[in-house]
């Protein structure tokens, strides 16, 4: 199978869908003439032309709103944010219009659209450019949220997102765009809300999504050398979330560590932990622990940033705690 980068996987998903469905358009900063800030939309202006690949001014509220309006009127827009940190400027259109009008109109108006772009931190970019938003978007009814960790998942999920008739928040990462993986040539999609056991183990369940999956994987490799077999679940879709897969795994391992690049208060890990204690109470041999960010904005200084971001070491410590090995 050919090996492709994450950015190519996303591009292929969009290109393949756009060839089949003329109502799909892309809007965002630098998506057309510059071929994308991260080269995700490279070559798409040439193929689809300026009516479908549209450069916008630096005005997130404006183009998020135009996208929402276009979706209401029958198009299927993909809105690219240069990062989801900038989507905060246009968030009223996402949370109040795209997410709610289907409900408020009694189902008369739908929003078949995707908001996509990089999420969370990407090195020393400072506090305002390093936020992980999956918890925030997941909080609101009316939105579906995806945060794939690998190119294969990204392509299959983005196609599902584009075909979905409701707004989908599709989260990517600057640090994963160059990540490569073998990809099948034939067409496939990945259903919404279905996680994947990416490593099987019997001693502890580690739930890790997006970029954190790779940190968890590294921790699991280290733990295996110590004789601890961790099962890693990548939920892939954050909302709806594949709780069933996590519960089944916890019933087997009796222990769980959640890795989350959100802040601790009301983050993804809180929700996952809550469901585990409710649905797998009698199977728990230790409290569910989480490895997440501290309740502090992203520091810029390298040494502080290093301490701030979840690391394999912290995951190993948490696993040792829940398996009573320390």
């Amino acid at each position, binding site marked *: 199978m050919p090996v492709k980068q994450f950015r190519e996987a996303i591009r292929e998903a969009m290109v393949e869908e756009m060839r089949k469905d003329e109502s799909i358009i892309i809007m965002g900063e630098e998506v057309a003439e510059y071929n994308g800030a991260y080269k995700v939309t490279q070559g798409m202006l040439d193929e689809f032309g300026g009516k479908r690949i549209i450069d916008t001014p630096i005005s997130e509220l404006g183009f998020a709103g135009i996208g929402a309006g276009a979706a209401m009127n029958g198009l299927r827009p993909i809105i690219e944010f240069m990062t989801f940190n900038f989507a905060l400027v246009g968030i009223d259109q996402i949370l109040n219009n795209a997410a709610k009008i289907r409900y408020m109109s009694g189902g008369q108006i739908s929003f078949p659209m995707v908001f996509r772009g990089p999420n969370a931190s990407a090195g020393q970019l400072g506090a305002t450019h390093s936020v992980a938003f999956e918890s925030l978007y997941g909080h609101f009814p009316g939105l579906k949220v995806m945060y794939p960790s690998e190119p294969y998942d990204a392509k299959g999920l983005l196609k599902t997102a584009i075909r979905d008739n409701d707004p989908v928040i599709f989260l990517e990462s600057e640090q994963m765009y160059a990540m490569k993986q073998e990809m099948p040539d034939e067409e496939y999609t990945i259903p919404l809300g279905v996680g994947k056991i990416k490593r099987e183990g019997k001693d502890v369940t580690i739930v890790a999504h997006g970029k954190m999956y790779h940190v968890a994987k590294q921790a699991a490799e280290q733990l295996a050398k110590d004789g601890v077999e961790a099962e890693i679940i990548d939920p892939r879709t954050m909302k709806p979330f594949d709780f069933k897969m996590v519960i089944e795994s916890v019933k087997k391992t009796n222990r769980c560590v959640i890795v989350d690049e959100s802040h601790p208060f009301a983050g993804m890990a809180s929700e996952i932990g809550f469901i585990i204690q409710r649905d797998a109470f*009698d199977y728990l041999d230790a409290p569910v622990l989480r490895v997440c960010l501290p309740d502090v904005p992203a520091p810029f200084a390298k040494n502080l940033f290093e301490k701030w971001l979840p*690391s394999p070491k912290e995951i190993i*410590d948490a696993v040792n705690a829940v398996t009573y090995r320390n």
Partner: protein
Amino acid sequence: MAILIDMPKLSDTMEEGIIAKWNVKEGDKVSSGDIIAEVETDKATMDVEVFDSGTVLKIIAQEGDSVPLGGKMAIIGEEGEDISEMLGDGGNSSASSKEDKKSSDEKSSAKEEKDEEFDPLFGELEKDSKGSEKEKADSEDSGSRVRISPLARKMADDQGISISDLKGKGSGPNGRITKKDVESFEKPEAATSQKSDEKDAAPEPAAKTKSAPAPGAYEDVPVSQMRKAIARRLGESKFTNPHFYETIDIDMKNAIELRKTFNALPDVKVSFNDLVVKACAVSLRRHQKVNSSWMGDFIRKHKEVHVAVAVAIEDGLVTPVIRNTDSKGLTEIGAEVRDLAAKARDKKLQPDQMEGSTFTISNLGMFGIEEFTAIINPPNACILAVGAIREVPVVEDGQVVPGNRMKVTLSSDHRVVDGASAAEFLQTLKGLLENPMSMML
């Protein structure tokens, strides 16, 4: 003076660059402003500009190489200049990173630079513990309350262990009782009764003498509920029921032919096991003594024939029961056996599907076992151990010809069945299997 060209920071987030293309080769003249190479960063392929003029003396990183920020790419200087000192470690680091990449080809590209000092995405294992975001779920001391994990509590309940017996045996934080502690817990009454037994019986059981094998030389596997049941029931059966064994050799020629005839019919699948089950059921109907149970002060003769079939599953075996076996046809028996065996393997058998048998069959023929003896499955009086059908030379009418034989061994409880009764049963069984058409009568 030679100048080293190192990997420039071409994007805010780049940690390394891959040489996509060299526009120059060693010996070429370059002048300030020339684009000498194209580098693939985490974001895009970017041009690398040279800010000095001179001759390319050495290309250190080759196309396709991954070079960390500040890593050596090339050396520019005057022709003939000695650059051996500058080459020193530069060449090495590039080569080693290339090897690293090859060895971990299947891993994601971002993971290749393992010896990077710090990688914001993948962090570093040797890092000091943070200790800031440590979550503590343990409340402070709360007096006499027994701390026990929900799982350990449920396990104790299931095994009839009183939580108060577990008190003080917790190995978790603040003495929390965990799964491990329940698994290693020995019931006080069980322990004492075992001790008194030992006094009367063997002087020094081997299990009690503690030798200390080297750590890692063994693995202690917790005993599942099923293994406990097997240990208890079969131990009890073997040690208290006076077993005796009788083996008979059966000519399977006709059974093989009949099976072929049946299986040639559309939608019919009959196995040898089905034939054996059916034949046993018919024989049991004729020999009620074998279809009985020892009840202590009386013997119960069962009026119904319920044959159980031993099914091997992961970590043990179960014996689902085919009810009223003698009144069922071969295909019906076969379908039921397959359905129950599948349920057994999925651990979906209901307790009532495993209870009430009057006779049990254990078949290891599919493993090529010639003959074996089985332990009686209480409260049955007998169990039949079925071996493989073997192609053997047999004497027919004074001639040695190829034949197909199967050995079955009946284990019987002597309190219920005597040698002659068991032999009569086996004769009937042999007759039925050698002339299987007679089962149809």
